[in-house]
């Protein structure tokens, strides 16, 4: 029987197998962000050594305010010492580091692919659940906890139970203004926020093949929102085009060797998956979440569900609680709901294609509510500026910021006030995620920009878009 893409990479990385069925996996590369700087302190205390500093890459993101460019400008002492702590430890332990002052710094999940750190066929980890993002390049990439980060630092390996495999077949041609974000929210709604638990998900089908790398990364990013740690897409010409020439990607002869290996990676035709799910996306419209779990989502032209229609009493109660927290009514149309703040950014949607999509809506229009545009890395920022996107945003009255996690997570200064409602391109609409009593609605960058210029949730398909090439 053939092997799946996931199994091929897995099998090539098994260092040892324990009697009870766990595999000791070799970790080709690990990314480290600021919240884990204390792991190095722990090593210093225990006297343990970092085994392969050459396979480790660090950059600050969670604790970097987006209105400063230097560490000494960070007012909050906790944030400052966290960002400085990573820099100090990376230097001491010989880890490649893109500090705040380096244009290559940014959100780990933007920086990894951008630098060619994450590559097809490798096993990659990071102490962050959205590490699933990198699977878009055709690698095994998953989020781990702090103890596991330490384990990798010392041994460059991890004990893992092989997950079951699920293939999500996404077929059909996506309509205008519908993309990766809408696809993944629709998929989560279909299989539920826990539907992927215990699985590695391979995203396949014609819609995935036609999707850009940015779109695939958005899809893989929110794999964890479906409960699965691993999301993966078979590497193809689009992948190779994206990877080629990146600083930490192979070049010269090594590139050709790599390419030959990578072409063997896709799942064999007779490979078996433990579960298969299909979704036809040809009629899919822009998705917006209304509740406190990413599975609680509607298409912009659908009403918010009514708890009275739900049979399961637990689910009914959960739905009612979410409606109350979000201050919404059963059957309400989101198009009638106004927003207080708009956020375009986060590891879900802060790449160049995302910023272009938002700019196409913003051009020639005015933001009706405070709007934050935060590029995912210094390099994305530079490219956007070279394309003039920053001017479009600023002329629309939007704030153009420095890279970082920003308002995705209320721990760096960018956040909502209690009771405020956001239209946000991030990936979590959990209670309090964007600040105590914050109300988050997840949507695509184009839809976020539409919310900004109308002050409510608007169907971006009803707005005429600017042609950025003429800007």
């Amino acid at each position: 029987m053939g092997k799946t893409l996931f199994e091929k990479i897995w099998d090539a990385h098994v260092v040892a197998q324990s009697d009870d069925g766990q595999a000791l996996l070799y970790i080709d590369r690990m990314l480290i962000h600021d919240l884990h700087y204390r792991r190095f302190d722990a090593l210093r205390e225990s006297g343990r050594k970092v085994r392969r500093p050459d396979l480790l890459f660090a950059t600050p993101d969670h604790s970097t305010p987006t209105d400063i460019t230097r560490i000494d400008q960070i007012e909050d002492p906790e944030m400052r010492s966290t960002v400085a702590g990573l820099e100090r430890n990376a230097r001491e332990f010989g880890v490649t580091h893109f500090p705040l002052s380096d244009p290559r710094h940014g959100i780990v999940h933007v920086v990894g692919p951008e630098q060619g750190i994450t590559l097809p066929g490798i096993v990659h980890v990071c102490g962050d659940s959205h590490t699933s993002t990198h699977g878009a390049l055709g690698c095994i990439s998953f989020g781990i906890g702090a103890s596991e980060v330490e384990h990798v630092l010392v041994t460059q390996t991890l004990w893992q139970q092989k997950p079951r495999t699920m293939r999500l077949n996404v077929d059909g041609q996506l309509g205008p203004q519908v993309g990766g974000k809408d696809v993944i929210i629709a998929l989560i709604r279909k299989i539920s926020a826990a539907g992927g638990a215990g699985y590695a998900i391979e995203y396949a089908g014609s819609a995935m093949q036609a999707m850009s790398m940015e779109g695939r990364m958005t899809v893989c990013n929110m794999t964890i929102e479906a409960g699965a740690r691993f999301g993966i897409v078979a590497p193809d010409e689009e992948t190779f085009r994206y990877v080629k020439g990146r600083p930490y990607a192979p070049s010269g002869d090594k590139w050709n060797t790599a390419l030959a290996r990578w072409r063997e990676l896709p799942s064999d035709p007779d490979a078996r998956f433990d579960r298969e799910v299909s979704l036809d996306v040809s009629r899919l419209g822009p998705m917006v979440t209304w509740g406190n779990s990413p599975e609680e989502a509607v298409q912009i032209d659908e009403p918010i569900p009514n708890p009275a229609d739900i049979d399961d009493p637990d689910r009914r109660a959960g739905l009612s609680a979410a409606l109350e927290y979000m201050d919404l009514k059963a059957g309400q149309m989101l198009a009638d709901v106004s927003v207080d703040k708009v956020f375009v950014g986060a590891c879900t949607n802060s790449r160049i294609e995302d910023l272009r999509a938002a700019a196409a809506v913003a051009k020639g229009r005015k933001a009706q509510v405070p709007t934050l545009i935060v590029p995912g890395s210094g390099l994305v920022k530079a490219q956007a500026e070279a394309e003039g996107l920053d001017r479009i945003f600023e002329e629309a009255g939007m704030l153009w910021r420095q890279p970082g996690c920003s308002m995705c997570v209320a721990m760096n200064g960018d956040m909502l006030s209690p009771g405020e409602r956001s239209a946000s391109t991030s990936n979590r609409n959990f209670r309090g995620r964007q600040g105590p009593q914050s109300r988050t609605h997840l949507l695509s960058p184009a839809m976020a920009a539409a919310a900004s210029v109308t002050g409510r949730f608007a169907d971006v398909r009803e707005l005429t878009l600017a042609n950025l090439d003429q800007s």
Partner: protein
Amino acid sequence: MDAFTLHTGIAVPLDIPNCDTDQIIPARFLRKPVDDPQYPRFFLADLRFDTDGSEKDFILNEAPFRNASVIVADRNWGCGSSRENAVTAMLKNNVAVVIAPSFGDIHYNNCVKRGLLPVRLSAEECAELRDYLKRNPGTQLTADLDDQVVSGAGNLSYRFEISSSDKQRLLTGLDDVDLTLRYQGDIEAFEKRRETEFDWLS
């Protein structure tokens, strides 16, 4: 980490499906050092406390449940962020066992790595237990890892499944890194192989 064999303690029912790790410990506390004396208050902070620090009307603030060390939760407990601080916050509140129909995959691993026992029971069994605890506040539940049994709620007693590797890890309380360092030879051999098999990566 401490070895886990058996634990008995007051159990609290938490009727919160999809209780994500952002709820278990909000992000603003993630930079706090583990020895912060306020750490116990970070656990479920926004559910337990108002912005002024006063206690909210929440089950963990009620008399017998304040001292709970066993949580009986709802589906998808600990989904979301990989933050291991969520386990730290529970341990700081002396929570030793969490029982739920399902867990976030990363959180489940984090619990095991830190010596906190995650117990998977069916949704019906969890609902039955939560219901019992509400009718009999202050009930002590016992989780016996050796026998893989949860008991103490009247006649109710449930067997649970756990992988043998996770079970061993909890029972011995051995540090994973020390364990892995016994495989030093395998790691070196793999790295040698990797130099040729993954030559394009070096």
